[in-house]
């Protein structure tokens, strides 16, 4: 029933249908806009602005991370060397490929090829799930098994590096946890888009939600590309 993508979340609210114009070709638009194209551009602008707030959200975390690392560098780096570089790097490759698959889907929807769109989005979804499985099914499980949770009494590192290493794992768990939550939201959104593609909601003329969710999906990818060096690379340098 919804024709316009707005920031995620608002979609949950059922709306009492506002008066609308019909505008031919099956594409409708909300009554405050002059035409569907103008509404679509506006919705995308809203998504960009939403991503700006997300940048500040993760920015606060990452800035704190860098600031605290500056205070106890040796401990942070000792902690970072215990992370699973192979899983992290594999996951990075998976996410980049997933974003690529989604971007391919956007190219196809612009050409009106809805059959291929569904395949691309399904690939993006599968890769996203693979990321979560590796990250939380494997890596986090290992981390807990190695007592790396920062408040664990049998935390493996002792001596002068202990405090810093614990802090590193505070940021590690918060950073990857928040990123994982964003992935979950993204996966729900991609599922929703796939369902609507199958229902035939989108066409060459109207596919705003596909693009909006694509922006979000790529943003979550970019967050990971910021976390990846902070977690796996900087401490090994």
């Amino acid at each position, binding site marked *: 029933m919804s024709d316009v993508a707005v920031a995620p979340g608002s979609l949950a609210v059922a709306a009492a249908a506002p008066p609308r114009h019909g505008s031919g070709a099956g594409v409708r638009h909300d009554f405050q806009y002059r035409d569907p194209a103008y509404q679509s551009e506006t919705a995308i602008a809203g998504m960009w602005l939403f991503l700006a707030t997300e940048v500040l959200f993760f920015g606060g975390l990452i800035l704190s991370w860098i600031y605290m690392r500056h205070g*106890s560098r040796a401990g942070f780096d000792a902690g970072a060397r215990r992370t699973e570089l192979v899983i992290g790097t594999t996951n990075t490759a998976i996410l980049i490929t997933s974003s690529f698959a989604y971007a391919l889907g956007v190219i196809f929807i612009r050409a009106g090829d809805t059959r291929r769109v569904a395949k691309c989005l399904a690939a993006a979804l599968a890769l996203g799930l693979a990321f979560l499985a590796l990250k939380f099914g494997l890596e986090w499980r290992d981390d807990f098994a190695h007592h790396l949770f920062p408040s664990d009494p049998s935390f493996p590192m002792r*001596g*002068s*590096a*202990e*405090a810093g290493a614990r802090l590193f794992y505070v940021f590690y768990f918060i950073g990857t946890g928040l990123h994982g939550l964003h992935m979950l939201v993204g996966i729900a959104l991609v599922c929703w888009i796939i369902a609507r593609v199958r229902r035939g909601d989108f066409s060459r003329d109207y596919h705003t939600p596909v693009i909006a969710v694509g922006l979000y999906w790529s943003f979550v990818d970019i967050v990971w590309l910021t976390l990846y060096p902070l977690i796996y690379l900087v401490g090994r340098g």
Partner: protein
Amino acid sequence: MRLSLPQAADSAPEVDHLLWALLAISAAVLALVFFLLFLYVVRYRATSGLDRGEVNEKTWRLEAAWTGATLAVFFGLFVWGADLYLRLSQAPPDALKIYVIAKQWMWKVEHDGGQREINALHVPVGTPIELVMTSEDVIHDLSIPAFRIKHDVLPDRYESLWFKAREPGTYHLFCTQFCGLDHSRMTGEVVVLKPPEYARWLAQNGAAGGLEEQGRALFVHFGCGGCHGVTPGTESTVRAPPLAGLYGSPVPLTDGTLVRADERYLHDSIVAPEREVVAGYAPIMPSYAGQIGEEDILKLVSYIETLSPERPP
């Protein structure tokens, strides 16, 4: 009701001068704004029938004028306030050190001679005093309105605040950073005494050994000398930076920076040794945070301050 505040320290009249200047400027600005407001409101009320003549539509000259004037006044105030702040922040090197430990909800004070008091601070008149302050729990703030000074007291680090009292008497001491349930009862008094009375007070409250002596006992108790006790040049299984003559000297760190070995540095080196590692040494010292209380760290620090090549641990 008393509307004046005693100027009981050297800093007080200086801050008051700035405050009077601010009051004068504020009064002038407010007088101007309120005068114009009333003038226009009365003169140009809709029913006044006054001929308005030409209305000035060119605004940028006026805008530039009042923006410039505002900037100039603000800049003057900034310089005055910042200069005074910087001067009042630097304790003179010969200041008498008194140690203050804040905890929910009391002030504990330790004098160099081992005298201790709670929620009271006895100081001599006319002597620069430096309060070296830390907290055992949350953030507190030590404020003495009669001296016009105040500073936050943080857990796990030393902050310093200094003054030179100039008027014997008893003054309020407040905690001014909200610190929980009995914040408003975390008050005390500063008693400024004439030097002979202060000497008498010290004598009457003399403790079993000064801070330094108690610190030495702790130094032995915690086995600090096992690593730090070695004088330079001699062999030892564990190599740790020597402490003799350390206090006040510059220390090169592994990251290439240089810090001065002040109270803060000594304190942090005990509770968070990995933060500032001395160049050429491995970061092997464990943290003693939570194992040595703030009061004992204080004693250790004041003991380490007395060490010199002539007087090694």
